[in-house]
């Protein structure tokens, strides 16, 4: 493609994201190797546990992939709105989709007063973009700022973040299930096994320990990946609207709005966190530690990146005699 484009991709972000995904894959391979090793040494009950965990894990990943839109909409109490119901919202999304050359997602509004937005669905044909009443009416966002938020969410759809994050979470789901199953089988099956095989009594705790470690590592890596995906969506969104400062303003306003809302509301929103525009968690002290666990990068980091894009947009275009 003879691209005349004004901006280069962010190599640093790509490298960090690749490294994260590579580590996640490495943990997965090591885990599978370990499990196979244990299985070859083990008898039927350990193998059955692992098989069941894989089936359950795969099943729940499948469900979250294919029903993510319905589940999320139901959890948020949102309803799909037609262009007649919300002409302005549709107008903004229509234009952004035409600009980005992507399928238009369905649009939903959730009655929550907390200002936020999320996009979900396994691909662009099946995705839903949901905004809350709070974002539309109580956050004081201007139309440009609202557009910035919508462009960020559309970028999540374009990047297929639901798919990527589901695949990335598969390992953690399976490992987490293994811990639980191994624990129960230890609890209920311990007596029967003791007589016939001395090794087996050790195997189950071993699987449990390995799974717990794998779960912890993959959990942190997934959170890291999620933060990178947020930065990537901020970046693509700002480049699409050509208006990073509106997105900065929106982020600031929404984050402030989130902190004013009582905790009760926020907790009910937590399961959806990974897909939200801003995390619905209260940030308290101990920043450095809470950053490791959070699904979203800190406001400071997001704004820093957007300010860099601001500078990029200010640079001259590829044509020296052209506009800027």
């Amino acid at each position: 493609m003879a691209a005349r484009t004004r901006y280069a991709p962010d190599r640093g972000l790509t490298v960090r994201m690749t490294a994260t995904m590579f580590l996640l894959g490495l943990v997965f391979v090591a885990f599978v190797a370990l499990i196979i090793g244990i299985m070859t040494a083990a008898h039927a009950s350990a193998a059955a546990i692992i098989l069941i965990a894989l089936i359950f894990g795969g099943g729940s990943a499948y469900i979250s992939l294919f029903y993510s839109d319905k589940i999320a909409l139901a959890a948020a109490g949102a309803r799909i709105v037609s262009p007649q119901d919300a002409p302005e919202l549709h107008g903004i999304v229509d234009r952004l989709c035409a600009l980005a050359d992507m399928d238009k997602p369905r649009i939903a509004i959730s009655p929550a007063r907390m200002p936020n937005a999320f996009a979900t669905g396994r691909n662009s044909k099946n995705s839903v973009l949901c905004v809350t009443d709070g974002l539309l009416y109580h956050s004081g966002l201007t139309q440009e700022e609202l557009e910035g938020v919508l462009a960020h969410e559309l970028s999540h759809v374009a990047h297929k973040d639901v798919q990527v994050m589901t695949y990335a979470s598969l390992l953690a789901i399976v490992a987490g299930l293994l811990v639980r199953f191994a624990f129960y089988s230890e609890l209920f099956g311990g007596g029967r096994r003791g007589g016939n095989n001395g090794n087996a009594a050790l195997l189950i705790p071993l699987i449990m320990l390995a799974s717990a470690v794998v779960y912890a590592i993959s959990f942190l890596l997934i959170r890291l990946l999620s933060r990178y995906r947020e930065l990537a969506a901020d970046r693509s969104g700002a480049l699409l609207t050509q208006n990073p400062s509106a997105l900065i303003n929106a982020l600031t306003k929404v984050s402030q709005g989130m902190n004013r809302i009582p905790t009760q509301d926020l907790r009910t929103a937590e399961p959806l966190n990974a897909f939200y525009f801003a995390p619905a968690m209260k940030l308290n002290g101990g920043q450095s530690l809470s950053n490791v666990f959070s699904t979203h990068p800190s406001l400071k980091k997001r704004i820093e990146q957007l300010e860099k894009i601001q500078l990029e947009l200010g640079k001259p275009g590829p044509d020296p005699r052209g506009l800027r």
Partner: protein
Amino acid sequence: MGFLDTLFGRTKPVQPKLDDLFGLPSAAVQLEAATGFKPTGSGSVSFRAPEGKPFADIQREVLELLAMDDDKPGGGLPVEVTKDSYGYTWIVSNHMSDEMDALVTDLHAVNTELVDGGFGPQLLCTLVAFSDENHRRLSLVYLYKRGTFYPFAPLSGNNNRDNALELQVKNVLGDDLRIEQDLTRWFPVWGAPGL
């Protein structure tokens, strides 16, 4: 988007396809024969200007850009620059209603200049306006990124469009223009300048 782009969460700026615009004059003849809709002589190009500049500056720069090379087609074009309520910049070109060829040449020149200026990924659409004896309005909208056209017929009143007319136009022009087959992409452009 490619697999790697998905993996790394990045979007490539989509470059526009411009040459299909030249199918418009013959389509206009066909349209008039079949439905009685005539070009109004007005057409417009919409794009997203980068932030951080007062609109007056963008306006001036676009006009300068278009007037830059008088020897090129498109040099010194008679155009107006306006901004709509969604924050998009529109460049409107006005001709006589029988000068469809000239209008399309101008619109193509405006687009080419914008692409050369690095605005290719920010181009939204090109729109050509038609009307019939009953003052019904119709426009053909060209989506750069897909290289397709679709009809948009706003009804007077509150954001309604004449879907029957649009589908009729789709059938009439099917042979002359590449019509967007995915109806969900026929996004309305209410209040577009030049319509």
